[in-house]
């Protein structure tokens, strides 16, 4: 079996799982009660191997394979995909560095148990009995049920990835979309870490690893955004094939065909760029461009899909308004699109052409 075929197989089985398990849970996951909905969803996801257990670690350490998983989940629910995204991103530095000790510390993560490191950098200091971690984290993001968080900290000469408890984070915010996840503002950190929950490297090494992890996480987000947009588009296409208006089926109406064609062009371009970015995770720039582009396109496509259904698209029962809310929220993850673009535009790094 080629590597691509393995990825396809993974995506197919995850797709089956999510089609079977998620639709009935979507309403609760999209509500303030989503933390409770996670309680019974997490074991299901784990049963299908979506937790970070030893057998799946090799796969998860391969960014393109993980992208297939996230894409397949996002076809059903971008919120659950984003929670897994935070989870995988939180495990990623340890997996890439082969820091099995950290991974073993509680026998692999239950899906949705770990949030991704929030913006900002914490201070790291060596102490007699371990490492002292201090500072403030602006935001923590993860599944609404997650209790731990991977954070990044630096001293003068070292950088470290650390898993800490989320205790003390502010009340979770209710968000426009991705409501299966929670954004917790303001977490004060000041404690000593011992044992297997920390991965310390030289400052340069840690920075390279961090950059690489961020690039992969951005590529994953782009994949989620494209998959969410594609699913919205499929919904709109199906509707257009059934709805009679303006003297014929919408699918025969040139205005709607143009709308659908333009949406398809954007979704496919976004998906291509996301894939391209995941092949170049040494680069910081391309994943940034891919994240911004795919989330923007994903949002536009979801809004166009609503538009294609007219008033029906605006109603919760049809599921497209949730896709649009999720899509817009994806734009706000891992850096504001406006500032990410300005940052990328200021970087002299050259993007390598594909192939």
């Amino acid at each position, binding site marked *: 079996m080629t590597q691509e075929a393995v990825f396809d197989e993974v995506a197919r089985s995850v797709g089956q799982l999510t089609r079977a398990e998620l639709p009935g849970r979507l309403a609760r996951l999209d509500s303030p009660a989503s933390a409770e909905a996670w309680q019974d969803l997490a074991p299901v996801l784990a049963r299908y191997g979506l937790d970070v257990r030893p057998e799946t670690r090799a796969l998860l350490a391969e960014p393109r394979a993980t992208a297939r998983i996230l894409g397949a989940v996002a076809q059903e629910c971008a919120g659950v995909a984003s929670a897994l995204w935070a989870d995988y991103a939180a495990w990623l530095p340890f997996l890439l560095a082969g820091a099995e000790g950290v991974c073993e510390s509680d026998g692999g993560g239950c899906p949705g148990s770990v949030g991704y490191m929030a*913006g900002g950098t914490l201070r790291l200091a060596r102490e007699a009995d371990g490492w002292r971690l201090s500072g403030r984290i602006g*935001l923590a*993001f993860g599944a609404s049920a997650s209790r731990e968080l991977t954070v990044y900290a630096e001293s003068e000469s070292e950088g470290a990835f650390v898993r800490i408890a989320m205790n003390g984070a502010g009340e979770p*915010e*209710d*968000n*426009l*979309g991705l409501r299966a996840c929670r*954004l917790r503002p303001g977490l004060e950190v000041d404690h000593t870490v011992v044992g297997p929950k920390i991965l310390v490297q030289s400052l340069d090494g840690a920075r390279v690893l961090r950059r690489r992890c961020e690039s992969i996480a951005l590529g994953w987000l782009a994949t989620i955004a494209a998959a969410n947009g594609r699913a919205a588009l499929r919904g709109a296409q199906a509707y257009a094939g059934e709805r*009679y*208006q*303006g*003297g014929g089926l919408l699918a025969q109406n040139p*205005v*709607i065909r143009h*709308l659908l064609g333009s949406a398809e062009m954007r979704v496919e371009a976004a998906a291509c760029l996301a894939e391209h970015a995941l092949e170049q995770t040494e680069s910081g720039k391309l994943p940034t461009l891919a994240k911004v582009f795919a989330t923007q396109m994903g*949002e536009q496509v979801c*809004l166009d899909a*609503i*538009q294609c259904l*007219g*008033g029906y*698209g*605006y*109603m*919760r*029962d049809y599921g497209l*308004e949730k896709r*649009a*809310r999720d899509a*817009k*929220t994806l*734009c*706000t*993850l891992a*850096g*504001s*699109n*406006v*500032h990410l673009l*300005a940052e990328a535009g200021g970087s002299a790094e050259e993007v390598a052409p594909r192939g």
Partner: protein
Amino acid sequence: MADVYSWLGRKMFAKKGWRDPLKAPRAVERFRADLREWLQREVAGDVDRLDQAHEEAHQMEVLRKGARAGWLTLLVPTRYGGEFRLMDFFRHGLLKGVVFTEELAAACSGVAVLYGAHTLGLLPLFLSFDPKILKKFLPEVAKSCRGERPGLFAFAITEPSAGSDVEDPEGSKGARLTTFARRKDGGYVLNGRKCFISGGNLAEFVTVFAALDKARGVESWTAFVVRRGTPGFSVGRIEDKMGQRASPAAELIFEDVFVPDDHRVGPEGDGWRLNQQTLDLSRPGVGAIALGAARSAFEKTLAWARGQGHLSDRLWQHELGDIAMKLEAGRTLVWRAAVTFPPDPALSAMSKCFASDVAMEACSRLIDLTAPFGAARPFGLEKAYRDVKLTQIYEGTNQIQRLKIAEPWLADGGGASA
């Protein structure tokens, strides 16, 4: 230089009675100030609850307060107990109406639709130019507004299988209508179903459009006022919507509903004209709803950015400048459509379509700019984002508006080359 300008302004323009056509007259600005103060006092504290839950009693409470302040009778002539003066209309056309709507929407666009749907339902009565029907219903509306349950109107054209087809003349030719009226002694019997009717479940009176003849479709469309409680008339499902959740969208069911002759609005077969002219008048108002919601999102962002010190950042200045420019362009178009008399259908369509498109873009970009906070509920932008999307859909989707703009060019043979 500034001094020369102000001198010129005083000496030349002001004296000659020259007025900036794009500035609201003082009377309208005073009205705006009073309205803002009222909204702050009576509505601001309720917005969250109105957005979260469908509570009919709560929605009625907001309407009751507004009715007492005169907001539900702005269109009702003074002689019937309302606030409308023809002279005001000659002075500033619908400007007061779009300012009213924008302010309401800046507080909560769902609340703006609670009021807007009532106006929409009343407009066909005015456009029928039939004093009898005005006299029949308007005094009752005015009186009810001083009581416990304001007599709201709603406007019902949309049917499950005919949405755009009852907005677009071209599509209307093949519209699959399901609501029909048939003559019976002393009146008509209505059967059928309407969907997505804003305020349909709260209304005391619904202006319903029904075809008299299946074969002639909308050509035989006729408007009727149906009272709440009439036997056979019931409310079906209330939609669970993305936004504008303060304003319920209801399904209305008509099963052998008898409507007396004197509840018919205009002559038989006048329904399509009434429908189109109603929408021509109201579309700038939809543009105003979009702008109001986006303006409020903009103001919140500006205040936050100032507090955070972002305003000294050139990228922030550039983004906010661009968004402000587009919103102002939208407002200019809405105001121009509002002061154009008789209403220009293409201009009305442009104002609704352009304003809602730029408002949607604005809300989206403001969330991007303020990420990650902007998508969080307490920040207030996410509601505007959800609310504004609807303005691209109702009263004719923005696709239909674009086709409407092209309509005059088809008058002389359409497709054939010029």
